[in-house]
């Protein structure tokens, strides 16, 4: 029993990786622009469909990642310019508008690709797996996911802390008005952040496509999980994403193994609610100065 829980714990790392990959884009958008993007799940879905198309054309996941980044990034640009830029000051209504965007994206995708499921194969060199402890195989692709999650975190850290854009983003996040006074075009920063976050959602879709059958409704559960990660980890701090994803991913895997899926999710939800009752701004958001 103990050993199998340990194996579950190890395989939980891939769940954590998935959560980090899915939540990063949302975290950036929510953390900086203050917008909950309800269409986030649909962005992931579009990314996955992009990967499916790339797969049909003969490319593998490594090709799909940049393509999905660009595709979904452009989609994000379109939606930011068309809709979201008018309602940054009304976060609750952004939530509704982006929900509408999500519905439209789902339906349009269904109209284009039809209702059937798509399967995207994982790259050839990542086929198979290795054994960790006991007899549980750990697929190479899961390890790949963990590596992608770490690389994406590193990428986002680099962008936020080492580039000029990141400096502006951090300034806007700290104090929007003063940042504007210092000559930072805050609207442009919001746009850049939204596009970058959307692109990350696209990458998430491309990477997650091989482990999940691609359908129009695939995104929503990821979106909700991502929200939970943000709520638990705290908004506006990248460590919060890692911590939230780590706690939720591991807890859910282990608890689902001990009880069942639903009880596991319920317990995790209760855990989240109790945690934010104690630290309302999330684990890492709490100490942040606003």
């Amino acid at each position, binding site marked *: 029993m103990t050993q199998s829980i340990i194996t579950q714990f190890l395989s939980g790392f891939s769940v954590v990786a998935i959560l980090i990959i899915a939540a990063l884009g949302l975290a950036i958008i929510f953390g900086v622009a203050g917008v909950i993007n309800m269409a986030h799940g649909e962005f992931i879905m579009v990314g996955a469909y992009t990967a499916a198309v790339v797969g049909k054309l003969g490319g593998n996941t490594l090709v799909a990642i940049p393509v999905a980044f660009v595709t979904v990034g452009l989609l994000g640009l379109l939606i930011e310019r068309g809709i979201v830029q008018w309602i940054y000051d009304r976060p609750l209504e952004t939530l509704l508008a982006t929900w509408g965007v999500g*519905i439209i994206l789902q339906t349009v995708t*269904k109209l284009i690709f039809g209702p059937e499921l798509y399967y995207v194969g994982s790259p050839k060199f990542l086929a198979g797996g290795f054994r960790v402890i006991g007899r549980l195989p750990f697929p190479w692709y899961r390890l790949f996911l963990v590596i992608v999650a770490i690389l994406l975190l590193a990428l986002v850290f680099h962008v936020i802390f080492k580039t000029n854009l990141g400096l502006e983003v951090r300034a806007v996040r700290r104090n929007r008005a003063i940042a504007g006074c210092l000559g930072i075009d805050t609207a442009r920063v919001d746009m850049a952040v939204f596009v970058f976050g959307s692109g990350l959602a696209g990458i998430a879709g491309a990477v997650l496509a091989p482990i999940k059958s691609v359908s129009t409704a695939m995104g929503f559960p990821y979106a909700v999980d991502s929200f939970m990660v943000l709520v638990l980890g705290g908004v506006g701090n990248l460590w919060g994403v890692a911590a939230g994803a780590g706690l939720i991913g591991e807890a859910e895997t282990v608890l689902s193994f001990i009880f069942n899926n639903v009880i596991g999710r319920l317990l995790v*939800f209760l855990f989240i609610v109790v945690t934010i009752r104690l630290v309302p701004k999330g684990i890492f958001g709490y100490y942040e100065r606003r």
Partner: protein
Amino acid sequence: MSGIALADAITKKPVRRVRRTPMLPRWALIGGAGVVALIGSYPYYGSNGYMLSLLGKFLCYAVFALSIDLIWGFTGILSLGQAVYFGVGAYFVAVSLKLNYTLTHPTRYGGKIPDFMEWNGLTAVPSFMAPLMSLPFAIVCALVVPTLLALLFGVITFKRHIYGVYCAVITLAESLILQDFIIEYQAYTGGFNGITDYSNYVGAAFLWFILGVTAVFFLTGRVLTHSRLGTVLKSIGDNDVRAEFMGYNVANYRIFVFCVSAFMAGAAGAMYAAWVGLVSFLDTGPVYSVEAVIWTAVGGRGTIIGPFVGAFLVKGAEFFLSGTLAEWWQILVGGLFIFVVLVLRDGIVGTIANWVRRRSAGSFRQIAQEADRKAHDRQRDWQAEGATRHGEEAR
């Protein structure tokens, strides 16, 4: 005019004049009575059973939308999981009706338990569900349990100043988990298929009952939001920090209105289950919750009539258009979300109200009255005591 007013204010005993709109303006009374009569008399002039069932359904939707309007439109709490309360209410009544139905209608295999229990290998009604055999008890549960759930939720979140987007996201997850729960424990809830095949109450009498309850709820909503309490609620919706500084316990107000709203949602769900005869996990899900939010937004949040109008319009359009439009209907709904947020912010009723207000500010009668009052003022200026400047005299 202002000089006189100032002088009056200083010299006379201060009278606090609060211009309040009447609780029930005449047009609302007449219109409301008209709508009630129109719907209530349908069994006499209409013979279409489908229309009848739609009417009862829409009334439940309207109550559900009202429950969202109270918390979102007035108090500014956006819940994306309001269907949890609707669904809990609906499931209590549905399970009770189903249990009673199976007593007289044994299943194909002769069992006197609901079919979904039999499929899942239960041989008798589990003891914790046995009390639900009594319909009155189930109805009480359908009303009380949602309220208690809302109380619990409110105490956990609002007391710690968790609201806004966080609240929306948590309620969303809540309803998603309830949905999973219902699907997973299908032996007790009917799972994916929901609860069907029980004797539901369709007919004129029950339509009148639903209509009566709906009318009472809408009147309650009006009384609640038109009172002092309603003013506080609106102020919380406008600026909760300021309301807190004014000395109001914002958290308690939020909890209170959230409980009232959950009660209404539970009642709506209970009536819905009894009327429609089919309850499924979809009735507790996030999609349904957000859909109801959009009815409220279309009708006009922050107005009492809005939810009614919105529920009837959107749901009516869905029933008549979604068949012919198929997939395009979904795109239309998505567009509606965006349209309501970007363009029609106050919804249909709110926009009409704004328009009337603006018009009445510049209407001919208003201008004439204004002129009259000015003439009156001028007349008083000519009176003897008006020789000194008003205002100076008072000092």
